[in-house]
């Protein structure tokens, strides 16, 4: 009778269910591991965010926004083309994932959203800065950035901006240049050979060209079938070599010397003209040219 009454109470029913269903408390280690699991996921997410940030820093450092006056009609259109959207998205996503996981830890709910989010952002930035300083930024951009089908690394994107002779933009390796002449031969980033007329180049531009290597040339627009390009400005392109070696670039300096010494068929001096004055961002480019890149 007493047992019957006991079973009628909540305590009685709960204990009966525990006995009948052979329920036992889950072991402590399960909870400890669960807690570690979420902390680890949170930390991993923040670390991935940090890698994204280092790649972003790499892009920001290597993309030359000062020459956007030549490649884009406005700074805004340059920003839209050059913004490291993939990395910003990855950073934001993994900071959110990190927040979600930290929130699931034992005491995660006690921390305000702003504290966790700010902590995750600051940790990602600090760690990302360290990764970048250690040289991971370029590695990540190169290793991961080229794989998503919807994304092309910004530095490869930038190359395409400079393969537009019809817009007066050309980039490539200088193959030959003889002091005292105004023209040089350039192989563009697609491997095509161009004769570059340099009669309007200032001495600073010529000095840059004389150094060889990869350069960007702003000139008067020309047709794609033409192999002569009239140069107005020459800017050095100090960029991440891995992006060039991916496509067979750069040509080694010994090749440069070899071609230089056999450039007897190079164009002669061309009469000086003022066609460069007609290119649209002339004054801005002149200012950049004078300030030096």
């Amino acid at each position, binding site marked *: 009778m007493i047992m019957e009454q006991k079973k009628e*109470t*909540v*305590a*009685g*029913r*709960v*204990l009966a*269910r*525990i*006995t009948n269903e052979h*329920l*036992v*408390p*889950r*072991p*402590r280690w*399960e*909870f400890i591991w669960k807690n570690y699991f979420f902390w680890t996921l949170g930390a991993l997410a923040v670390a991935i965010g940090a890698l994204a940030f280092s790649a972003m820093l790499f892009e920001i450092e290597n993309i030359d926004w000062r020459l956007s006056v030549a490649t884009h009609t406005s700074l805004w259109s340059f920003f839209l083309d050059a913004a490291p959207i993939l990395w910003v998205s990855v950073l934001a996503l993994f900071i959110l994932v990190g927040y979600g996981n930290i929130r699931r830890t*034992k*005491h995660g*709910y*006690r*921390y*305000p*959203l702003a504290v966790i989010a700010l902590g995750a952002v600051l940790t990602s930035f600090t760690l990302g800065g360290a990764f970048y300083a250690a040289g991971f930024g370029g590695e990540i951009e190169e290793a991961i950035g080229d794989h998503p089908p919807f994304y092309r690394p910004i530095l490869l994107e930038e190359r395409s901006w400079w393969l537009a002779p019809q817009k007066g933009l050309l980039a490539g390796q200088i193959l030959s240049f003889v002091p005292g002449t105004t023209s040089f031969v350039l192989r563009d980033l697609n491997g095509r050979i161009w004769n570059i007329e340099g009669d309007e180049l200032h001495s600073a531009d010529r000095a840059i060209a004389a150094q060889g290597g990869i350069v960007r040339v702003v000139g008067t627009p020309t047709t794609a079938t033409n192999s002569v390009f009239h140069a107005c400005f020459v800017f050095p392109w100090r960029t991440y070599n891995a992006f060039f070696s991916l496509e067979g670039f750069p040509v080694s300096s010994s090749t440069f010397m070899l071609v230089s010494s056999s450039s007897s068929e190079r164009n002669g001096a061309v009469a000086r003209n003022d066609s460069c004055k007609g290119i649209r961002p002339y004054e801005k480019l002149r200012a950049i040219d004078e300030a030096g890149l």
Partner: protein
Amino acid sequence: MPPEMSDEEIVRRTLLNKDEFALLIERYEAKLSRYLERLGVGIREDREDILQNAFIKAYKNLNSFDPTLAFSSWMYRIAHNEAMSFFRSKRARPSIVLDDEDRDFFAEMRDENSDTSEIAELRLSREELEKAFSKIAPLQRDVLTLRFFEDRSYAEMSDILEVPIGTVSTLLHRAKRALRAALPKPFEL
């Protein structure tokens, strides 16, 4: 069994002998049943089912109980979550159910107001109070219930609702403002 035995001590003993769990159930059954009723679980059988599930869940997760927070907060949290699951399964959240004793609510609430001079003498019927509560958001009802009916501290509410203490404070402030707006004019707080 010494009457002063703490909840935490009973938890330790329960891990060795499941029958000890009855002590915790008996200690919290009435309180939690009342809390569930205030949350809107009006039918006694439903409350008992929710309580039973809550205690079973507590038993199964006894090793996850964190002694740095009060056992009562942990138990309230489980009961609260069970009640929310119950409401979700019913796809309905009834309004608060009060009894005459709950009319002391305003005295409690008045104590928290800094400017007591503006507080009117409150003579609300239970129905009027319930009606005002039905007009505010469920989460706001929950925080008011925990704070003024269950006498929970901000820290305990934070542990029960699993939100930061700052959020509890904000929620409570908004809940009081919402309730003030929902009250009949002569009874504004």
